[in-house]
Structures are given as C-alpha cells and as structure tokens.
C-alpha cells in the first residue's frame, strides 16, 4: 500500500477507532491528525521532486478502476487540510470533550482527502456524501435548538445538492460511457454533456454555499461549536470549491459558459455576503457572512481564470482557498475564545470595561488582515496574482468589483478590530488581560501561518506549477 491510499484510509480507520473507544478518542484522533500531516508533507515532497503521483487501486486502470491522483493542486489542498486540522485538533483535545466530535472530524478528514485525490466522478460523489453527513453531525454537536435546526436545513440542502450531482454524473455517463476525469472534456462537446456539467455545477454551488444558494450556511456555521465552525467554514466548503476548480481545469476551454456564470454569481456573493456582514449583530454571524463573501471571491477567481492551459490565473483561486482556510479557521477559533471570555458574542459588547483585549483578539486581527489582503499575508499573494492576471487579460470591471469587495471586507472586519484596538475611557485602569488558553495558541498559530505563508508563498506556487498528470 502506498502513501496515497494510506492518507485516505488512515483517517477513516481512526474514525472507527475513535467511535469504538470513546475514552481514548482524543488521543487517537490527535495522533491520526499528526500522522495525516506527516503523510501530506511526504506526499507534497514527492510531488515536488517527481511530479504527480498516481495509484490505480488494485491495479485496475481507468476507466474501469478507481484511480487516485496527487498532483500539485491536490497536494496544496491536502496540506491546507492537514494544517487547519492540526490547529483544530489542538483546540479540541484541550477543550471539554464532546462525545462524537472525534469520529465526525476523522470522517470529515478522510472524506476530504479522498475527494482531493479522486480522479473519478463517482468516487467524488461518494466522498461528498461522507463529507456532507459528517459535516451535518459537526453542526448538530452543539446540541442547541438553533444548531439542530441549522443542521436539518444543512442536510436538506446538501442532499438536494448531491442528488443534482448524481443526476449530472449519471447523465454524463450516458453521454460519454465513462466516469473518470477524462469524461469532462468529452462532456463539453455536446449539448446533453453540457447539461450534465451544468447539473453537477448546480449541485456543487449548493454544497459550496455560493450566492444565491448559500441560504443554509450562515446559520449552520454560526450555531456550531467553535472547533466545528472552523472545520466547516475553512475546509468543508472548500471541498465543493475544489471540485469546481478541478472541473474547470479538466474541461479546459470548453467550460467557458459555466465559468462566466460562476464569475457573476461569485461577484454577487462577494457583495451580498459583505453587506450582511456589515449588518450582523453577532460576531459569529459576521464571520459566517464573511465566508459567503470570500467564497464569492474564490468563485469569481475560478470564473475569470479563463482557459487554464493558456493562463495561470487559476492558481490565484487555489492560493485564495488556502489563505481563506487558514485565516477563517483562525478567526472562528479566536471568536470561540472571545465569546468564552465575554460570555456573549455581541459585536456592540466588545468594548468591555473589565477585560483588555487578549491573544484571541490579536489572532482575529491578523486573520482579518489576511482576509482583507494586506501584505505580507497569504491573502495578499492570492489577490495580487488575481489582479495581476486580470490586468494582463484586460478585465478591468472584474478588478473594480474585487476592489469594492476588498473595501467592504475591510469595513466589516474593522467593526470588530477597531473595537478591540480602542483603549480610552471605557477600558478600566484595573482591567485584566484574559489568561492564555490552548484555543488561543491554536488560533494564533493559524493566524501566524497565514502571515508566514505570505512570506513563503513560493512553496505552494511551486507545487501548483507542477504539470498535471
């Protein structure tokens, strides 16, 4: 067995183990997350050295068998999952144990890894189903009525999305007679094939919570427990976005019609999410609406990327996914700590007299800087790539929209950051700093990661530039 199937198998085995041994769940889960990070790093090294790694499971070649392919894009996504997973596991292992968190997180990890590595549409559908069910479980873990209701809506929306994907896959099989990734190019050549692609894309738009089908998402992401919110917002929606990017890459020039729609929806999401984040009264809801806006930005980047064989603009979308994952996970973990210290998460109540801003607020601020896209953070590199490419392509109107979205994100994030920065009369002279907790370390670690990634952006870019299999 090679590394590449082990990285899918290990988390799924760990999911079974953590479910079977609840007392040792945290230890087993943390160990599996650490091993997963090592495997991902090793796989990344192999891709850098020798190009894409492939494995045909049981030596059955495509189109009959199921193949795993780890190319540069998959490597970046695996690394993103591993890094965010480490931080979230650190937070969860230190915090009060919730029965069920570890099996669900391990299933999420296995499904994500499988999704990134699969080069087969039907296998991707199966990975999506595992991911969807595990993510709903993570939402419902909080146990409150709002969380349960949000989980129900999430599962309903997710099922409609995956049924659409299934319909699209079956239709694409009836057109091309195969379900591996080679089918995507063939699909773009006929009308029925294009309908199949559009159905798959529509299902993915529901699952990625892209405007205007994001209705289920803010409630789900804001009512879950902090560690779960971080996973849902940073990683789970990326699964669907990754597949959109993958289809766009595989389809080449033929998926132009879908990319145009995607860019328009993305621009809509960017503005609508920002507007709702500006009006949000609760911190978690602000961060969740900011995810709607950021997903819009990433979709726009995928949409305007043009033919991937001619431009490298799609790499901007991958970099934005990576930077958003780090920053948003840091933000949700930080918000969890802030809400814990304050006892509430009302934005108007952040100016408190008895407590000074602590490490969690600091982590939030760094993550906010990366989301806005100020240098030297990872978010800056992504936006730089995107805008530089758009200048070459002459897409001035897209640049204007992106800048508007950036200004709005600076506006809604500064609603929080400015309240944390202010000293002045409402902070009492005797105010204490909140004590350090492991949650602070996890949030600060991720935020620092977003900062360092901006300085070491050469690594993911080299990975992304590895030629495809």
């Amino acid at each position, binding site marked *: 067995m090679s590394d590449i199937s082990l990285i899918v198998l290990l988390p799924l085995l760990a999911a079974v183990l953590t479910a079977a041994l609840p007392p040792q769940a945290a230890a087993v889960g943390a160990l599996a997350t650490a091993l997963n990070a090592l495997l991902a790093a090793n796989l990344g090294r192999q891709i850098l050295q020798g190009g894409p790694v492939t494995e045909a499971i049981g030596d059955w070649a495509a189109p009959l068998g199921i193949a795993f392919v780890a190319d540069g894009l998959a490597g970046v996504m695996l690394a993103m999952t591993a890094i965010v997973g480490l931080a979230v596991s650190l937070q969860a292992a230190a915090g009060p144990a919730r029965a069920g968190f570890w099996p669900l997180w391990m299933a999420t990890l296995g499904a994500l890894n499988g999704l990134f590595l699969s080069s087969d549409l*039907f296998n991707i*559908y*199966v990975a999506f*189903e595992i991911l969807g*069910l595990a993510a*709903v479980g993570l939402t*419902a873990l909080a146990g*409150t*009525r709002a969380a*349960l*209701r949000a*989980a*129900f809506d999430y*599962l*309903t929306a997710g*099922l*409609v999305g*995956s*049924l659409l994907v*299934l*319909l699209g*896959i*079956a*239709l694409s*099989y*009836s057109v091309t007679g195969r*379900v591996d990734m080679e089918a995507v190019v063939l699909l773009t050549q006929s009308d029925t094939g294009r309908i199949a692609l559009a159905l798959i894309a529509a299902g993915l738009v529901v699952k990625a919570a892209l405007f205007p089908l994001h209705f289920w998402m803010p409630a789900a992401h804001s009512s879950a427990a902090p560690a779960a919110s971080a996973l849902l917002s940073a990683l789970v929606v990326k699964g669907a976005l990754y597949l959109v990017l993958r289809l766009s890459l595989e389809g080449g020039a033929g998926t132009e019609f879908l990319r145009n729609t995607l860019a328009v929806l993305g621009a809509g999401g960017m503005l609508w999410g920002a507007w709702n984040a500006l009006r949000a009264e609760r911190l978690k809801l602000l961060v969740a609406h900011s995810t709607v806006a950021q997903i819009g930005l990433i979709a726009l980047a995928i949409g305007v990327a043009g033919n991937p064989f001619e431009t490298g603009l799609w790499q901007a979308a991958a970099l934005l996914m990576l930077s958003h994952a780090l920053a948003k996970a840091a933000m949700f973990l930080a918000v969890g700590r802030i809400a814990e210290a304050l006892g509430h998460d009302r934005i108007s109540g952040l100016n408190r007299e008895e407590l000074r801003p602590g490490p969690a607020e600091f982590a939030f601020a760094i993550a906010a800087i990366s989301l806005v896209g100020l240098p030297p953070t990872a978010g800056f590199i992504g936006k730089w790539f995107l805008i530089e490419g758009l200048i070459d392509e002459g897409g001035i109107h897209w640049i204007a929209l992106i800048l508007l979205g950036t200004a709005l994100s600076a506006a809604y994030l500064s609603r929080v950051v400015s309240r944390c920065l202010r000293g002045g009369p409402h902070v009492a002279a005797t105010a204490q700093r909140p004590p350090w907790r492991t949650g602070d370390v996890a949030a600060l670690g991720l935020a620092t990661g977003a900062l360092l990634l901006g300085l070491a952006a050469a690594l993911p870019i080299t990975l992304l530039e590895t030629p495809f299999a």
Partner: protein
Amino acid sequence: MISDFAFLLSGAGLIGLALFRLATSADLLMRVLGLNVLAIGIAMVLLVAARGAAGTDAVPQAFILTGIVVLVGVTAALLALAERVAEARDE
C-alpha cells in the same frame, strides 16, 4: 418508445413537484418526504437513461442503487434531527 417517454415525463414531474415542495414548505416532515420524492424522480430519469439500443446498461442502475442507499441513511439522519428539533422545542 412510449413507455420510455412516460417514465421520463413522470420522473421530471416528480422532480418538479418535489423541488416546489422543498422550496415552499417549512414543515420538517414534509421536507423529508419531498427529498424522497425528488430522489425517486431522479431515479426514474436515470432508469430511462440506462436503456439504449443495445439493451440495458447496468452502470446507471448501480448509481441509482448507491443513491437509494445514501437516501435511506440520510432520511434516517433527517428524521433523528427532526425529532431532536421537536424535543428542543418542547423544553
């Protein structure tokens, strides 16, 4: 063939009805039922797609089977969640 057309039409009709119900109904049980009807509609369309000049292709049927398995699992999860929501409401 006329039976193919009838299958396709009723499948599309079921999908339309189910999507309408899902979009308009706030009742949890109604939405679980709507999802099931949607899946059946999709399965009927796929069954027609599986029939070709050279006979019936088994692969789309295998897709439908997977879809049914997933649907049963998800329906169970949805009903459990609906029950928990109702309990939380009563408290």
